[in-house]
């Protein structure tokens, strides 16, 4: 991945900056710049998500793409954020710990590296809420 392609998404990936439509109040993460409900009447502004949510579904990945091979087995989940939207992320916990409905909170983690000398991708993972 080029530096620019990663760099432009740093606010979203590091700090969960998504968007919100001021017209209808709907929240978007991953961010959208066009509200599918209000369409051209929508008014999109940035929104920082609190990073708390609930596990909707999950899997334990045993066979991964090359960049993630060293992590296997790892927990991948769809998380519903408390503000409404759903996102895909890893959960840092034992594979037998994850459950549907489990409460989780966001943490800043290394996601992957572009080979031995490429850029390091950081971003958001989740951990079980205490």
């Amino acid at each position: 991945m080029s530096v620019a392609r990663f760099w432009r998404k740093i606010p979203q990936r590091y700090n969960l900056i998504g968007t919100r439509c001021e017209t209808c109040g709907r929240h978007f993460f991953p961010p959208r710049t066009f509200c599918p409900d209000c369409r051209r009447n929508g008014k999109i502004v940035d929104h920082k998500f609190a990073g708390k949510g609930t596990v909707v579904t999950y899997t334990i990945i045993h066979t991964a793409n090359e960049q993630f091979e060293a992590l296997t087995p790892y927990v991948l989940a769809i998380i519903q954020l408390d503000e409404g939207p759903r996102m895909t992320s890893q959960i840092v916990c034992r594979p037998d710990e994850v459950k549907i409905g489990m409460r989780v909170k966001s943490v800043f983690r290394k996601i992957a590296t572009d080979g031995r000398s490429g850029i390091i991708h950081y971003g958001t993972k989740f951990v079980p809420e205490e």
Partner: protein
Amino acid sequence: MRDVAIIGVGCTTFGEKWQSSFRHLFVEAGALALEDAQLSGEKIDAMYVGNMSAGRFIEQEHIGALIADYAGMATRHIPSTRVEAACASGGLAFRQAVIAVASGMEDIVVAAGVEKMTDVEPGASTDTLTGAADREWEGFVGATFPGLYAMIATDYMHRYPLTREQLAQVSVKNHYNGARNPIAQYQQEITIGTVLRSTMVAEPLRLFDCSPITDGAAAVIVAPLDRAREFTDTPIKVLASAQASDTIALHDRRDISTLDASVAAGKQAFKMAKLSHKDIDMVEVHDCFSIAEICAIEDLGFCKKGEAGKFTADGETALSGKIPVNTSGGLKACGHPVGATGIKQVCEIVQQLRNEAGKRQIDGAKIGMTHNVGGTGATVAVHILGRV
């Protein structure tokens, strides 16, 4: 709109075809389809080719021109267009060919699909397939394609009665059918034990829940129905052509275990053909993973939501069942050369309707259906075909 008929079909064998290049594969499929239609190349007015990712699999773009050139059409300058919708590329290429003929713009049109997947390392092909989902917000965080379907399976098994054994029965049934299909990548029968003992890929899905990496090509030729008898005694009419879309990412879907695009395309197709699921003699569904077939037969209306596991275990989707599903062996056993799959599904239904399906023939088949999915359900193409 004019009525459209299929006048010829051709399909290469599917598998790891080390000796065959991309262009070799589609020329072979095209020649088989032309021979089937007893047609010479000069009669062809246009071509559409479904292909997901030649750019990453063989570092070749501009597939429309390439396929026309190596099919011997370069000096005739016919329009040739590549169609891409990940794993639904073939289904959409077929639909574009049908629309071209139905509109009256073209008469004799080739719809082909081709994918050459084994010229890259397995890790690279898996990564390329991840591009069918949301690269920035699914692939980036470590989602794989099996991983996304595994999350559908986890959600489904949490909400509906589906046992691990019932899920395995999908693959067992598809291998049984594949063992009766001479073009299938895997022509061996398997047992539930084979599935349950295979390598874990993404829980709860194991290796034998997953369709393989495959090389292959398929081609069909469509023409106006009123001219079809010039070429064949057994034209197959296109009774419906439907296509629907949905969010690119699985996490944005209304319901994780329902492919709303399948529901929408299915309803639209039945409406267009003025038929219901009871009229369908057999269906080729997009079983890229075992759970995908479970969702598909429910989403298309062949059984109620939550009942597909029992329906499958009871043998209702087998060759002798109420609604035979994936008589070709499906993506699981016949193989899944991504761009070719949607066209191969059409070839299979045409063979069934012409009573040419050999050991997997459904007696008295009159109407069949195809269901081709891109990604985790962001694109779906459904076609209904019938004898005339």
